């Protein structure tokens, strides 16, 4: 039987973890600044939806996913699908920061002929993209197909699909949920960016407030709720290697739409609104970045 870790080893581990988490927090802050600046520069909306999932994306791409930007089509790679495709403005920054393509490519963002706008393009057109989402309800079934493929081909990778709470209105999500649980697709993880808003109203006003985590649990998923802005919690839940056989996992991540900027938080105007120059000054101040 292994002896319990010596105090000094435990301290070192905790120190490494704390350093790592600090680093991830810094990356998230940088990502937020880039996303907001880009929204202003290119007049791209969906800022609220992008900011609520930054921490999830950073935890995934900078720590948890087994991916290699130099080998974006490695058959053994983990797959991350931005099922809430309107969060693409966040994904584009993070993929660039992670090295999937040169930063310089983002210079064309929002221009005629660009690949970069509001939704991810087809994977054939941009490395790092797993599915051309933008129409809700597609990413989870596609992810389920990818997860099942691992079992069929004797591979071992995780598939993470990031959904929005509004997206859980779509029937196809629940079709996928049923099948994934019935087939015990243990390497499939659904993360719901639960920011409590959809395009035109609070989620509970549109489709009621029956428990979201309760729904996933009832469908047979191993379900949990976390603070979607707690990097330690995200790293913990997303970092686990999953077996191809087992219960699929649903992580209901409680988030704040517009997280990171006080005047954007939980204000659904920022679903569509574009930040002004003045807004940018306030943003830089709040994020603690030099002008």
């Amino acid at each position, binding site marked *: 039987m292994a002896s319990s870790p010596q105090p000094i080893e435990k301290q070192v581990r905790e120190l490494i973890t704390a350093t790592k988490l600090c680093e991830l927090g810094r990356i998230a802050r940088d990502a937020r600044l880039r996303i907001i600046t880009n929204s202003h520069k290119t007049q791209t909306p969906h800022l609220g939806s992008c900011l609520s999932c930054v921490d999830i994306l950073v935890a995934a791409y900078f720590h948890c996913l087994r991916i290699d930007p130099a080998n974006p089509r490695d058959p053994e790679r983990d797959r991350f699908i931005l099922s809430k495709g309107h969060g693409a403005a966040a994904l584009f920054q993070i993929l660039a920061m992670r090295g999937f393509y040169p930063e310089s490519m983002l210079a064309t963002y929002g221009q005629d002929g660009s690949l970069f706008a509001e939704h991810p393009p087809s994977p*054939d057109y941009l490395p790092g993209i797993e599915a051309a989402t933008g129409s809700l309800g597609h990413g989870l*079934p596609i992810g389920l*197909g990818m997860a*099942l493929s691992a*079992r069929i081909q004797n591979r071992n990778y995780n598939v993470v699909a990031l959904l929005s709470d509004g997206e859980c209105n779509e029937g*196809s999500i629940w079709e996928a949920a049923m*099948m994934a649980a019935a087939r015990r697709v243990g390497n499939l993880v659904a993360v719901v960016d639960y920011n409590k808003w959809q395009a035109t109203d609070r989620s509970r006003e549109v489709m009621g407030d029956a428990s979201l985590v309760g729904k996933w649990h009832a469908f047979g998923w191993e379900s949990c709720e976390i603070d979607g802005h707690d990097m330690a919690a995200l790293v913990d839940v997303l970092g686990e290697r999953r077996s191809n056989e087992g219960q699929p996992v649903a992580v209901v991540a409680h988030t704040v739409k517009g997280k990171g900027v006080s005047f954007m938080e939980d204000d659904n105007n920022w679903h569509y609104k574009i930040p002004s120059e003045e807004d940018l000054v306030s943003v830089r101040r709040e994020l603690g970045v030099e002008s």
Partner: protein
Amino acid sequence: MRNAFADEVTKLGAEDDRVVLLTGDIGNRLFDRFKENKRERFFNCGVAEANMMGVAAGMAMSGLRPIVYTITPFTTTRCYEQIRVDACYHDVPVIIVGTGSGLSYADLGPTHHSCEDLAIMRVLPNMTVLAPADEVELRQCLRAAIELDGPVYMRIGKKGEKVTPKATDEFQIGRSITVAEGTDVCLISTGTVLPMVMEAVTMLADAGISARVESFHTVKPLDEGTLADVFTRFRLVAVIEEHSRLGGLGGSIAEWLARQNGKAGRMISFGTDDVFLHEIGTQNYARGRLGLTAENVARGVREAVG
């Protein structure tokens, strides 16, 4: 035809490890042999077709060759969004098989008819559209479809479709098969109406009209070579399909004709009327109600040639 499909897909599955079969809770016992051989590559996805199509696309994106099978409306109109976005926009190799197409399920009412599937499938970029006439063409189509790297839609019959003998078993997607030679008119048939068309040929012969017959197993891409040939050679071309006259093969050929800048060519088309058929009956009854009979085709052609 569905038995032939089950047989051929079982053979394909044994030969090619990438083949995966997904069904929408249909085909009781039909795929027992496939399941015996390749249990882990068979998925009854339940009565949830939108998810099934998304899952198939995800598998195709991962290097597998999924084949999706259910009754035609459920693998077309039901999950059209997924076909369009997950399969066609991503341009991935999903083979979509609609069984009991056209009026095959005439006894089940319009919810189970499919007289618009060719129209909606051929209008999707990257889609190949196939309509084999019989089990021989079906097997050829399926094998050829597996060789393609993009989405394929194939509509098949149900059962009891007569096999029309062909002079050759050469097969190529996009290249029609000449089933009968003739000199006066050309009949272009797609899908399982071919035996009916061959009966019309006999009736026309009795009336002194010699008809060539082309089996267009491929609706998209259109065999423009054959079209250019027959529209030049024959004073009338008739297109026959178990599909609405709006937008199917007839529609596609009319579009092609319009692009020929007024050069030669006269066509008439036979297909279903722009209605839902509320009365049930056999497939032959339904075809009779909607003008898809040998007598009607022969009469229509005779009147058109004058």
